[in-house]
């Protein structure tokens, strides 16, 4: 491996390590959910389009069906009118034929619109299923995110407690206490040393006093005897 390749590999490995450090799984999941919601918004908009078209086409189909029934009714009325001699039969048949032709056109229109409405309804059912899938994925991710956040919080708290127990305290409280303990111990040792020193000095002085003490006592006894003699006792 050439030197440049090695440098490149090293840089690549380091950059991955840095990215791994920066990557926050919670933030990444949140962004994923936001992206999915954008997809959902687009899918819902398309679905609304298709559903609106389905409603309108179905409405038009129903109107064509009603018009066809109306023209058939009119043709029947014309023939009935002619039958009861209110109208010339030939004229009634001519108009009835025209009405039936119009009924045929409306029937065709109904068939066409009905097929179109069915197509829209089929498409909207497919889109609805996609929208539902995205919605359920978002719900699943949101639930996972909630769990992830709770777990992260728990892990953080547990780590802190364990650090404190292990005395590897990041906030420095335990370290500070340890330092304090050491300082107190050192002070105590110093105090003890001074105490020992003081004790040594005392004993030396005592000994000297003790040694000198007997002379002082004799002096005092001599002085007392002299005083008694002076008083004639």
């Amino acid at each position: 491996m050439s030197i440049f390749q090695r440098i490149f590999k090293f840089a690549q490995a380091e950059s991955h390590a840095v990215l791994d450090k920066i990557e926050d799984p919670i933030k990444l999941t949140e962004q994923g959910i936001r992206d999915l919601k954008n997809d959902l918004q687009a899918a819902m908009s398309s679905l609304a389009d298709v559903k609106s078209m389905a409603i309108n086409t179905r409405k038009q189909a129903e109107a064509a069906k009603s018009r066809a029934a109306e023209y058939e009714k009119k043709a029947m009325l014309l023939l009935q009118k002619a039958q009861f001699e209110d109208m010339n039969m030939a004229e009634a048949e001519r108009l009835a034929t025209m009405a039936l032709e119009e009924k045929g056109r409306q029937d065709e229109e109904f068939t066409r619109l009905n097929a179109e409405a069915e197509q829209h309804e089929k498409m909207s059912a497919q889109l609805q299923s996609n929208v539902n899938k995205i919605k359920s994925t978002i719900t699943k991710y949101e639930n996972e995110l909630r769990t992830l956040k709770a777990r992260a919080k728990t892990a953080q708290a547990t780590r802190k407690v364990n650090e404190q127990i292990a005395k590897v305290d990041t906030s420095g409280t335990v370290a500070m206490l340890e330092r304090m303990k050491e300082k107190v111990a050192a002070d105590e040792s110093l105090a003890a040393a001074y105490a020992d020193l003081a004790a040594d000095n005392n004993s030396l002085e005592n000994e000297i006093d003790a040694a000198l003490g007997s002379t002082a006592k004799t002096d005092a006894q001599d002085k007392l005897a002299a005083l008694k003699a002076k008083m004639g006792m």
Partner: protein
Amino acid sequence: MGLFDRFKNKAQHDAQVDSITNLTLTSMRPGFLVDYDLKTWEVKAANRYEWGSMISLEWQLVSADDTIYLECETDDETEWSISRPISFRSLGESVRRAIMETGDGPDQVSWQGQTYYLEETAGGHFFANGQVTGKAAQSDEGAPLLQWGYETEDGSSYLTIEQWGDTDFQAFAGGPAHEYQFSNILPPAR
């Protein structure tokens, strides 16, 4: 566009996306679509009624071959109902006469073989598409109306009579509804 405007726009977009993906019945406005009773309905109007201190909301839902009214009333708890317009004449002449003579609806009404008992009487104001708030809506006093609400003994069917003018009456028949019966709420297509 400044940097902060960019952040503000992004926050607004996120809020909008959130509101679109968590739609509820009460968020429906004209143009929204909703599935109910195996049909897709388009919201034609979202109206508001004010009954003194109380407010009720009403959505006119139109399908390819039907029109229904979805109503939401919040008192101690939220109650939903569905109704369809019926002919006021079909309630019989005695109902009209009773209201004209006494100024109040009769204690009970018979319609299509069922007896409905007077449950509540109210006077209020109607705001067409009144869910839209703003100065125009606030300054609008709304159309005054009187309403008599009837129920069958078991509470499974409702009948409502509305008086909009001296001789202008409307009647609706329906029953209780539940939010879970409505699904797939969609905002208008862009």
